């Protein structure tokens, strides 16, 4: 019923509408982290800009080999702004963008070299290490045993960036702290293996860790479950996982390292609508509020005592007083 009513005025404005297309990464919408955050940004834009925009989202096949085709189809179908969610789109976007100079592309997490402001690609890049530094500090502040844990999905530079920031943050508070690190697997499936996530976390807890941070997508469900079952603390990632966790686990989620993919998506759409799309590189760090740590009604008491310290560190990072390492190599 509703849809019909809006159709009439929509038609008149058709020419003005900004058409936004988005291709998810394999796994697609509903992963409770990365892809969902992108979708949230899309939804927010839809809400705020109403009939000024028209959106469409696609998912690649399970193997992911048709990312390029999907981007291309959207471009061919005259979408004005096309998102590729995830660094796996890097090459595909670079190729398609060349063929469609009129279409704007936004690449989340990926880096295409040599872009300028008037390029038709915008790379949305996050400083995950900065956010991770904060939650590392939080973990160290909360740890009673002097041991904390990290569970990553797959050992790749992106995830190592989380790990490096986390360790640096923890050492900043307590140089003697021991960080137990584990990774789940060697394929994309490592990001959807909560069973192993839980077993690894349980092992870390058994070995003395009492706060565990995960950067493992849907596998993190298992990490949080393990921490809660052993009455230890977990730190979520990407989105505020306290909000999606079950009631019983919430007391055990210290905080979440926020990666505001939603903000990035929203801002980019906004720039299109307002006609000031900028190519090149958009940074999302602590300064830009692109990363951060979550405070919500469930953890506000839990985190209250360390919040001032965290805020202090945050300011220091933003000022450049603290330099956060971006890889494990730098860490050493």
């Amino acid at each position: 019923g509703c849809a019909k009513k809006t159709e009439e005025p929509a038609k008149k404005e058709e020419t003005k509408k900004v058409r936004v297309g988005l291709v998810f990464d394999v796994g697609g919408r509903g992963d409770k982290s990365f892809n969902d955050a992108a979708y949230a940004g899309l939804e927010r834009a839809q809400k705020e800009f109403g009939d000024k925009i028209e959106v469409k989202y696609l998912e690649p096949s399970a193997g992911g080999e048709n990312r390029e085709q999907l981007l291309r189809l959207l471009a061919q179908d005259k979408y004005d702004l096309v998102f590729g969610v995830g660094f796996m789109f890097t090459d595909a976007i670079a190729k398609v963008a060349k063929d469609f100079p009129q279409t704007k592309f936004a690449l989340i997490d990926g880096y295409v070299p040599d872009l300028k402001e008037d390029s038709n690609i915008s790379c949305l890049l996050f400083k995950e290490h900065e956010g991770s530094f904060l939650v590392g500090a939080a973990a160290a502040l909360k740890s009673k045993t002097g041991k904390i844990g990290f569970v990553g999905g797959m050992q790749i530079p992106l995830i190592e960036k989380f790990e490096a920031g986390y360790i640096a943050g923890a050492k900043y508070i307590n140089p003697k702290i021991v960080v137990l690190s584990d990774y789940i697997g060697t394929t994309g499936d490592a990001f959807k293996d909560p069973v192993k996530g839980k077993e690894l976390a349980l092992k870390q807890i058994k070995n003395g860790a009492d706060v565990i941070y995960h950067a493992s997508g849907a596998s993190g469900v298992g990490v949080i479950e393990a921490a809660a079952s052993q009455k230890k603390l977990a730190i979520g990632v990407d989105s505020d996982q306290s909000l999606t966790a079950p009631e019983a686990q919430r007391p055990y989620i210290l905080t979440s390292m926020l990666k505001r993919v939603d903000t990035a998506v929203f801002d980019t759409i906004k720039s299109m609508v307002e006609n000031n799309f900028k190519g090149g590189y958009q940074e999302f760090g602590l300064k830009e509020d692109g990363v951060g740590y979550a405070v919500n009604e469930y953890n506000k008491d839990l985190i209250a005592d360390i919040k001032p310290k965290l805020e202090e560190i945050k300011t220091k990072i933003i000022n450049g007083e603290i330099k956060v390492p971006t890889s494990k190599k730098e860490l050493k």
Partner: protein
Amino acid sequence: MGDIMEMLASALRMTIPVLITALGAIYSERSGVTNIGLEGMMMTGAFWGAYGALHYGPVGGFLLAIAMGMLVALIHAVVTVTYRVDQIVSGVAINILAYGLARFFSIALFGMATTSPSVNGLPKIDIPLLKNINALKPIATDISPIIILGILLVFITYWVLERTVFGLRLKAVGENPLAADTLGVKVIPYRYLGVIISGAFAGLAGAYLSIEHTHMYVEGMTQGKGFIALAAMIFGNWMPFGSFWASFLFGFAEAISMRVVQSKVIPYQFIKMIPYLLTLLVLAGVVRKAQPPASVGIPYSREGD
């Protein structure tokens, strides 16, 4: 000691889903039907288990998972037993289908393609007597009833196969369906049952993952365990106890691999290989002639048309 017990407990948790699925596969294979669709049936179980547990509690979840596992298995049975289609192609198609259906219903029912809301598991239990022995605490206290059930199913399966009319006929149908047929044993229904039981077991195993282990369904959480179960069943020579040891070997190797510390000497990728490598090495070390059911994989029809 405590560490070892802890590791055993972990090994046991990793063993159970593979074991239960492997036990189910025994029923199917011994009735003469290869089931390479176990992965999809587990996935179905994991999904519907979570859905059921969300709305009807953990027991409801398990029942629903078992029922849905059976339903998917029924497709396999219709296609392979009634229509005598190649059992492997059907299994492959079932895996594709189950993946699609789980996603489809996940969006329809949870509003999310890949995860469910969190659900409650069954109450944890302690094993009487054993729980009093301090050293055994990690494996005797606070464990999921499904772990106990899984172990019991090994004995039950053995008993069913060796002592009951059903077991005797099931095996007969897998060994020499024509012979069984001449004695009035109806081949088709027994094969249906074998396949459907395997679906029930795989559903149960999948639901164990979602309801008991992580209290949530996550797409792809079966992680190829259906295939591992198939391997375990073959390695176990189509026997319940054999399958138990094979599944345990795998679970144990997983537990080890999670406890090997990453270092320069052993890159992490090689640690992740341990379960598979170890299984392969053990296999290569154990020379044993596989004794598959004589008619497994061969569709049956009385007049050979």
